[in-house]
């Protein structure tokens, strides 16, 4: 039982960091282990923003092995060297926590090859690459993660987020949502449910050169959609295909640079409440998530089984 939330402002920007925090905080009872944000911020759109981690949060509740912080610095140096050898020009770097960084950089080559090389360094994982995507995930509730990464000031057009209750994999950042749609810039996915044909799909996709960083079944959705899109499908086509390609129960959101989509499995086994108006779409696992940003009386509904919807900004 995880909680997912998403919103998209059409035609304008808003304080999506604070709005998503309010929605995810309302869903805390559905997932207290970790919280993730995928915010599509009002950046200048010129440079890539890469968020990556060089270690795990080993705080209270974590299932990761405790490491000395000096190891993190060494890994960061290795990443810097790798970036240099790949020809990426780092314009700005921020150390957010001892184990996670945000780089603004210029890079014009293939992102798949780039990611593979960066992630060949031990325990280094790229959380996201994108020109507007800011993907943050860490242990703790929505407020704690917001404060830790100073997300309250982020303005943007749309966002998706996740409050995770760890079930089939550990309490750590690598298994936390959202998942980046590797190797596509600005694609992220959050999921509520269980996928039962994870290993079959994983083996098939790995044979096609796709990468999995965790053993979390939800990661499959991001990789599945990325593979479809790499072969020329649109996001909506990939999502419709996933209804039969993925087995199990799920409701998931996927966001790209300029769109936000939702898909619900054919059994309608996982909850989703949706509010749709001309300038705002807000959705979440429970009505209270929507009410946390729209306290006035509104009309909401549950999408039906097998429904796929995509909204543009």
């Amino acid at each position: 039982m995880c909680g997912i939330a998403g919103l998209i402002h059409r035609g304008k920007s808003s304080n999506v960091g604070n709005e998503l925090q309010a929605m995810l905080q309302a869903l805390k009872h559905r997932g207290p282990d970790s919280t993730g944000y995928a915010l599509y911020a009002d950046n200048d759109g010129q440079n890539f923003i890469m968020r990556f981690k060089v270690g795990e949060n080993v705080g209270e509740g974590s299932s990761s092995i405790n490491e000395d912080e000096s190891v993190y610095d060494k890994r960061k140096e290795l990443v810097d060297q790798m970036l240099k050898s790949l020809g990426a020009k780092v314009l700005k770097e921020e150390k957010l926590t001892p184990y996670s960084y945000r780089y603004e950089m210029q890079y014009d080559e293939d992102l798949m090859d780039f990611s593979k090389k960066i992630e060949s360094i031990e325990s280094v994982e790229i959380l996201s690459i994108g020109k507007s995507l800011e993907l943050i995930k860490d242990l703790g509730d929505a407020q704690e993660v917001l404060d830790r990464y100073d997300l309250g000031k982020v303005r943007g057009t749309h966002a998706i987020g996740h409050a995770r209750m760890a079930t089939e994999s550990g309490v750590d950042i690598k298994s936390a949502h959202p998942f980046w749609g590797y190797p596509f810039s600005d694609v992220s996915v959050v999921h509520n449910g269980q996928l039962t044909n994870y290993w079959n799909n994983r083996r098939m996709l790995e044979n096609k050169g796709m990468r999995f960083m965790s053993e979390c079944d939800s990661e499959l959705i991001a990789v599945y959609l990325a593979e479809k899109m790499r072969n020329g499908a649109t996001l909506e086509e990939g999502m419709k295909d996933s209804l039969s390609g993925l087995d199990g129960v799920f409701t998931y959101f996927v966001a790209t640079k300029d769109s936000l989509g939702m898909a619900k499995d054919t059994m309608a086994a996982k909850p989703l409440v949706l509010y749709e108006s001309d300038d705002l779409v807000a959705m979440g696992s429970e009505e209270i998530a929507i009410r946390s940003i729209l306290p006035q009386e509104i009309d909401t509904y549950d999408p039906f089984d097998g429904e796929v919807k995509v909204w543009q900004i």
Partner: protein
Amino acid sequence: MANLKTTEKKTKAQSMGLHTEVLTGKTQQKFFNPDEAENFYYWGTYDVDFNKRIDLDVNDLDCKEANKKIDELMSQGYGTIVIKNPQGKHSLGVGILNKLNLIFEGSLGYFGVGSIDGPTVRINGRVGWSCAENMMAGKVVIEKNAGSCFGAAVRGGDLICKGSVGARTGIDQKGGTIIVGGDAGAFTGFMMQRGRIIILGNVGINLGDSMYDGTIYVGGKIGSFGSDAIESPMTKSDVDWIKRKLKVAEIGENFDISKMTKVVAGKKLWNYDALEPTEKKGAI
């Protein structure tokens, strides 16, 4: 073997005379003494006056506090309670076992008005999953849409949604009537055992899947029939009954009832009919 007659410590039930055991060669159990009947009362119920009306703003209360407050107001004799600002909170108005006029000015979250026995509830907004689960009696009217598992395991009463509902409406239904003015999702009437469902709009796939008994009436298109759900001809008594129910529900005034599809159980999934009536009751 211990002689229960000489056992000094009695359980609460025994001290109330509900459950006495006497060893006279064989154990005799007496679970209910009619002489004690006047001491019985239905725990948690109140005599209320419908003319006593009060507003309750639950914006700053959590669901436990709000439900306790409703209980407190009923104990003071308030018979019409208007809940303001429910804001999608879960489990509001549950476990009310007496007559009451309960009005929600807003939307409820999950498990709203569950396990009720008697009240008349009007919800001006929307409800989340599992609204009125296990309702025994009463009437619940929802002005907007409802989530999945609408009226799960209801045993009696009328449950009315004027908008559309999610999947698995009337799952495990054991009695009563569910009326939906709009569309319904997949698995409507899944494993239903008794009672009736009326859907004026379209329904999704697997309608009435694995139903044991009961009847589903559909006004619109049917996605597909589930296992053991079959179509049955509409009779005049069906039409009359639906007409009466829709009038009570205040929806579908000009709806052509005679064109509705009636769905019942094929009763082929298990040997339901081979059972004696008493066994049947036990099975349900």
